[in-house]
């Protein structure tokens, strides 16, 4: 039966892990806006393409400077 102490310890540790993840999520602002991300995901693909474009632009410029 003493294995139960190990199991309780393990389960508590996992639960604490989730609690920390939750606190991190709130802290990093994931609960601030519960609507915009649902729309943003619809045009993410195109955007990434553009971002890499603009980044390479930026790099070129920095290189030139």
């Amino acid at each position, binding site marked *: 039966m003493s294995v*139960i102490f190990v199991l*309780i310890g393990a389960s508590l540790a996992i639960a604490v892990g989730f609690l920390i993840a939750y606190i991190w999520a709130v802290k990093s602002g994931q609960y*601030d*806006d519960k609507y*915009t991300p649902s*729309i943003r995901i619809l045009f993410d693909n195109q955007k990434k393409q553009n971002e890499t474009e603009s980044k390479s632009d930026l790099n070129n410029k920095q290189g030139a400077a």
Partner: protein
Amino acid sequence: MDILTHKQTAISDEKNEIGKSCYHCGDYCQDDSIKLDEKIFCCNGCKTVYEILSANKLFEYYSLEKNPGIKKNEKIKRNYEFLEDLELKNRLIDFTDGTITSITLNIPEMHCSSCIWILENLYRLNNGIINSRVNFLQKTLNIYFNETSTSIKEIFELLASIGYEPALNLGQKEEQFSKLSYKTLYFKIGIAGFCFGNVMLLSFPEYLSIGTNELPEMKKIFAYINILLAVPVFFYSASDYFSSAWKGLKKKIINIDVPIALGILVLFFRSLAEIIFSIGPGYIDSLTGLVFFLLIGRLFQNKTYDTLNFERNYKSYFPISITIKEGNSEKTIPVEKISVGNRIVIRNDEIIPADSILIKGRANIDYSFVTGESIPVEKKNGDVIYAGGKQIGEAVEVETIKDVSQSYLTQLWNDEAFQKTEESRIVSLANSISKYFTIIILSIAGAGAAFWFSIDSHIAFNVFTAVLIVACPCALALSTPFTLGNTLRIFGKNKFYLKNTHVIEKLAAITAIVFDKTGTITENSLSEVNFDNAFLNDEEKILLKSAVRNSSHPLSKSIYRSLLEFSIHKTNSFEETPGKGIFASINNFTIKIGNNNFVNEKLIIDDEGNTKVYISINNDPKGYLLISNKYRTGLKQIIEKLKRVYQLALLSGDSEGEKQKLRNIFGDESNLYFKQSPHDKLNFIKTLQVKGKRVLMLGDGLNDAGALKQSDVGISISDNVNNFSPACDGILDSKMFHRLNDFISFAIKSKKIIITSFIISFIYNIFGIIYAVTGTLTPIVAAILMPLSSISVVLFTSFSTNFVAKKEKLL
């Protein structure tokens, strides 16, 4: 999402003929003269935006949503020079490291996914912008930009050029505070939930007596882990209840948090004592569960409308900056730096920030903010112009005679109504009950302890604490937030947005209703145009329509709207004399539209106060149009119903012109007052309150701001809820005005639901107390009774509010 789709529905209403709608904004196009790339635009402003976007290959803007654009007001060309002012800049910036700067702007115009897309792709329009993020619900845009290659001024100009003009409100920094407290509540719930779950897990062996006999040390270790888990709940998650109870006690008020705090304290310390002295397992499960449920209730109650601002004052209406003239040079300064004697340049559509004297130019002032009356007043040199008026027409120069905060209108904010902190005269139901509740519970606990004391002092202590534990008003405390939170949401679905749940209780308690006239019971944009006294054939109506189309005067717009079915001729020449009328020549006709002595060489005597617009064609008088305010649909029925229950009054800034018409609607017993200044309105509410009335004020403009603030419930009526409205307790979409009666009666029914759920929770309490005083309250009974009572009360309130709402056709 009901607030957010406003613009979309507005578009689809107007977009009857698809072929003729503007590619950019979807508005109806007069003709297809403004054309580019096979696309038709309603105005040059829309075309310009399309040009900017297409030049940068941002076509996706138009593919995500149909006609997503915002119609640009070409007349307003703001000058953003003032954003170079260092002090002002620092107030806008979130943080900066010298090169990378972050600012958060409020963009009221964003309304669809295309808006999000374009605003998050700003970097493609301006190289200096590194990244931009939209928070759609709060309508904010966060921009990171490079100081070396762009500036705040340029970003503002860019946003304005594509139709997303940022709203500058320098008071907005305060909002971040409420966001922080929201996060704290999330932390508290998370921790309470985590501890509650684990405590339940560890308490199960105890409930079912599993393994406790074989491994006595297991029981002990579990109990100590429970204490460990209870500590953060007690000290962190529950801390609000202690501080609120303490604050109440200091003011000698026993609020609902006092019995809750008492219950939590007893739960914690008795459990601690039981575990440490190995008496029993304690009530840690009940403690953590109680705090968790209470916090959930608080979260449910905290529904807020992020996009709406209920705390605006005149500063939100007034310009941020103003152009002053020093010698021959002009410069822009922040509005609060204006001092008496400054010479200010006021352009078309700009608001006069301080009481001034007109020095140069023809002023035509729209006082709709101050009086509610939107027909402009003409002013001559040397006339005093009051702050809050809006210039229509050419740029004028004025000299200030008072400071911004000491002007006629703004003085209103110096009234004590704005100084005192929000302390309602109407005590919430839960708080008014808790006083008696606490006293009764304490006396039952005392009596129980006294009875047992002669038999066994140990049992006496147990009974005393058990009563306090079991009577902890969890269900009582939950019934209010869940009922009112649900009511708030149902109101929101019906476009009636309240500041917080307490307003519902106040709304249920009102005894008198005061209405403002213009904009509140009359429709803002729609005036009734009566053609009975105008002798016009169809061809002449076409001429009339073509002529007024060129004018932006509100009366011209009303005439134009009343002639929608007619076609249009091209105007050859057009001239508008502010305050008088318009003169246009179309084909072979000359048409004069305006006031009596502008149109008719020989004055025609008129007697009544109604607005008349005279017409002559080729100098041949054609009579006049009678233009009157249009009352909101359902006004008569609403007043009819409200009249029976409440004392009604009407306050109008206008003259008595419509008195008879209003008397017919309001009846003889209501008070109608005309020519009321903003101060008069405020004082009228005060006198009603002195007489013991609880007043609901309905208003719309800045002129009602004082009355809205002073009243017990101040509701502002708005055609577009996202527009500015003065500080108030609630915002009602004008389309739902005819349901006002239902809203009030639903608020009253919500209050009855709370009372019913109080009775239910009292019944639970009586059962619990019977267990407690007989000394048989075991942890498992407490652990079952507490969640059972809470959950059943929550279910009852949710179902019954929804049921009542359905019956009232609010859902």
